[in-house]
């Protein structure tokens, strides 16, 4: 220190350092507010997205009103007598999202349980990248798979595939019910645990169920699938796309459940399945609901897969739950119609697409708020 005082340069520096706490404080607070402003970019972006989508959607509602848009199924934006009934589009988005949820939620939640509680550490290290890669595959690649590989497969041998998968899903279920049911039945009939009675009881339960399964699968394999680009195709692919979201969010909430809860359950003599189903999953319920909501958001906002593989027919299938008919969704309509509507900026044909986008935006916004609430609540519980 003594040496450094010899040099005037250093002296000046020290003087500055000690005498300029004021400038330093000003600089610091200036920097602070600069950081705050830059952080605000995301807020501004959200705000602008809402403002600009709303601004371009408003003229449509002014020109055409609300009623037809939400209640009519006649979607003819480019014909001479234009009509903008978006009900079939809302329905298309809804049915595809429902299908995706039916595919992704059971498998996703079970896979999350598997990740958090069943697999060993090293196996988990294999599964995590698999999920990450599933999430990373671009949506257009999924769309390509759905259109070029899956759709022809579904069209040619879809009914057989469905029948086979019904066997794969139902056979273990039936076997399980037969074995468990026979156990319950035999214990009711005779107090002595007799093998013969159990076998007979299992046959009594199992044979009708298998016969039913056989009828079901032969019915399914008789179905004609006229087009491979339909709601079923899109639902399955969207379900696989939503899986990583569902798995990782539910896995997070399941691992956050305190170890002591599990240990308490084991100490009471519960098996692992009982612990998981009765203790861990109820504790992580909020997180799982949030996962489902995020999955819904992922499925409803997806554009490329539905645009490429849904068949793009703006009608409500008959009967309404028929997954084998082509449908059309909100996102695909926006993507597909903008190419032509772009030429006629200012017409209701252009603005109606913003109206559709506004509906999507509001829906995902609300979903997001609800999801966040659930995540917060589950965090409170698991703590």
């Amino acid at each position, binding site marked *: 220190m003594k040496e450094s005082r010899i040099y005037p340069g250093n002296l000046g520096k020290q003087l500055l350092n000690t005498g300029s706490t004021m400038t330093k404080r000003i600089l610091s607070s200036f920097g602070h507010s600069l950081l705050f402003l*830059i*952080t605000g970019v995301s807020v501004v972006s959200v705000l602008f997205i809402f403002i600009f989508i709303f601004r371009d959607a408003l003229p449509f509602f002014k020109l055409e009103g609300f009623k037809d848009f939400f209640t009519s199924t006649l979607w003819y934006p480019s014909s001479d007598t234009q009509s903008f009934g978006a009900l079939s589009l809302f329905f298309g988005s809804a049915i595809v999202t429902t299908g995706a949820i039916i595919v992704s939620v059971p498998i996703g939640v079970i896979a999350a349980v598997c990740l958090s509680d069943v697999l060993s550490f090293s196996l988990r290290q294999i599964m995590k990248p698999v999920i990450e890669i599933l999430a990373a595959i*671009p*949506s257009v*690649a999924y769309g390509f798979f759905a259109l070029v590989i899956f759709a022809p497969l579904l069209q040619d041998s879809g009914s057989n595939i469905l029948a086979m998968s019904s066997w794969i899903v139902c056979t273990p279920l039936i076997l399980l019910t037969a074995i468990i049911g026979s156990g319950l039945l035999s214990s009711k009939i005779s107090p002595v645990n007799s093998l013969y009675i159990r076998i007979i009881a299992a046959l009594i339960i199992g044979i009708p169920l298998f016969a039913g399964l056989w009828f079901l699968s032969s019915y399914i394999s008789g179905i004609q699938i006229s087009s491979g680009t339909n709601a079923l195709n899109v639902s399955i692919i969207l379900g696989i796309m939503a*899986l990583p979201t569902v798995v990782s969010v539910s896995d997070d909430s399941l691992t956050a459940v305190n170890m002591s809860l599990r240990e308490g359950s084991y100490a009471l003599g519960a098996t*692992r399945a009982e612990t*998981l189903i009765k203790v861990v999953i109820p504790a992580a319920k909020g997180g799982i609901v949030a996962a489902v909501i995020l999955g819904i958001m992922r499925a409803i906002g997806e554009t490329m897969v539905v645009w490429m593989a849904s068949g793009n027919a703006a009608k409500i299938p008959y009967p309404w739950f028929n997954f084998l008919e082509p449908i059309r969704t909100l996102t695909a309509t926006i993507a597909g119609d903008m190419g032509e509507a772009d030429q006629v900026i200012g017409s209701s044909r252009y603005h109606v697409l913003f109206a559709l986008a506004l509906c999507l935006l509001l829906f995902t916004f609300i979903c997001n708020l609800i999801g966040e609430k659930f995540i917060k609540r589950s965090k409170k519980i698991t703590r």
Partner: protein
Amino acid sequence: MQLQTRKLLDKSFTGLNLFSAFFLISALIIILGPIFFKGIGAFVFKGTIEYRRMIFDQFGRGNKEKISKEIAYSQKARKFIYDTISDFEKGIIVEPYIKETKKIYKEYKEYLASLKLTVPHQTELRRKSRSLHLLFIKAVESTDKGEIEDIFNKILSDPYRKSFDSTPMQKVFRLVTRYSEIVNQVDLSNREVYLEYLIDLKDRLRILLGPFPKDPKPILPRNHYGQTRWDRSLVKLDDVLFIEKYDYSDSSGIGRMVQYPRAEIFKGTPVEHIFSYLEDDLESILLPKTVFYWRFLIDVPLDSNIFGGIWPAILGTFYLTFGALLFSIPPGIIAAIYLTEFAKENWVIRLIRTCIGTLAGVPSIVFGLFGLAFFINTIHVSTSKSVLAGSMTLAILVLPTIIRASEEAIRAVPHTYKEAALSLGASRWRAVLTAILPAALPGILTGIIISMGRAAGETAPIIFTAAVSVGKPLKLWETLSQPTPALSWNIYNLCTEHEAVDEIRHVQYGMVLTLILIVLLLNIIAIILRARINKRLIGRT
């Protein structure tokens, strides 16, 4: 419940769990497997002589002598087919004669106009030449030998013949002599039977082998060459060998498609033999050779992607991705630093966090609409679609990912780092810049790499803001004002809107494979990086 049953239930639950894990892995394999397998076909395939000819003509690559030798060899092998057909078509395809006569007549009219004859003389000559050429056309269209001879005699003994000497009309008389020779050689009565089939056959052969030796040069490059790939040639060979007919013998009224051999149609004629010849000797005609076409990645596409590579799309994806990072990294990292190190938990911060969450949940197509409405139609960063507008849109899309990943990375840095820096007398700013950020950098990098993959694969936001189907590779400064092809958009475009979807499957698969490999590579880098960080952080604490 019995203990046994409970144990069974427990085991089956575990089985269900393992099944779900198995499902995830098999979904990944089922989706990626065919894309990998067929995508490689864009790079490694059996190229025919037509492929080598195309590469030499269009890209100037290849050994000229070797290729001309090969072409000569293949021409020798093809000669039989071409000769047989041109012999056979003489009495059947007469369209060229009619065309030529019409052309001669037109020429003659122009010639007459330039002669400056008296009007009545001129009209008479024109009338005569007109009737003569019509007579010839009538003769050509007829299949009755006697009638043809009559007409020809009439033409050749025409009193005006002398006055047509050394004018264009003279050619008509030459045509007459040429055609009368043909008439004497071949059987004209087949014309009705074979005309349609022969024209169809010739078209199919053109698709397989390229234009016939005497054909005029086609306009589109795709018609200059036969099949360039051996696998496609086999498909097209089937088209030559078989004709698709519908069998309505079924009582249901729905036609069943049957493959009917074309050779049966031409049974008893010399053309019958070319089918078996083609089937047996296609290899010596097309000379397939395995090629490794790595230049698929850096060649420009020709004739809307039918030939060539995908370079403009790769370059476009590259520009868009790096543009998006350019606009999103600085605000992303700064926001993460502010949120973790400076912000106090209050309602403003909660609002910011909610907004980041909302931004992450906005559907990608809405980003596209926003980009169109804001960047292009409102603040006019460019007059129409441009890479600049597209990368700004993508930047907003990946912003939440970058903020969250950076936040996580900064939070993962042990508190001791910051405390040590502060205790050494560093200010808060200095501690952040010199101690926390360097330690968090690998984690931040992981987030950036993952968002890079996301930006490269997104399609919906760039549809309205940056992407076009066909375009040349852009220079760096052109990105400010011009749209670009991009891998993701071109995959969509080629497999739905392209005019020859089935012909260019290999290009589509190659494109998807390229995009997936880019994204996977980025993700694998991120995964490895993260594993190393985890090890390091565990090792130090």
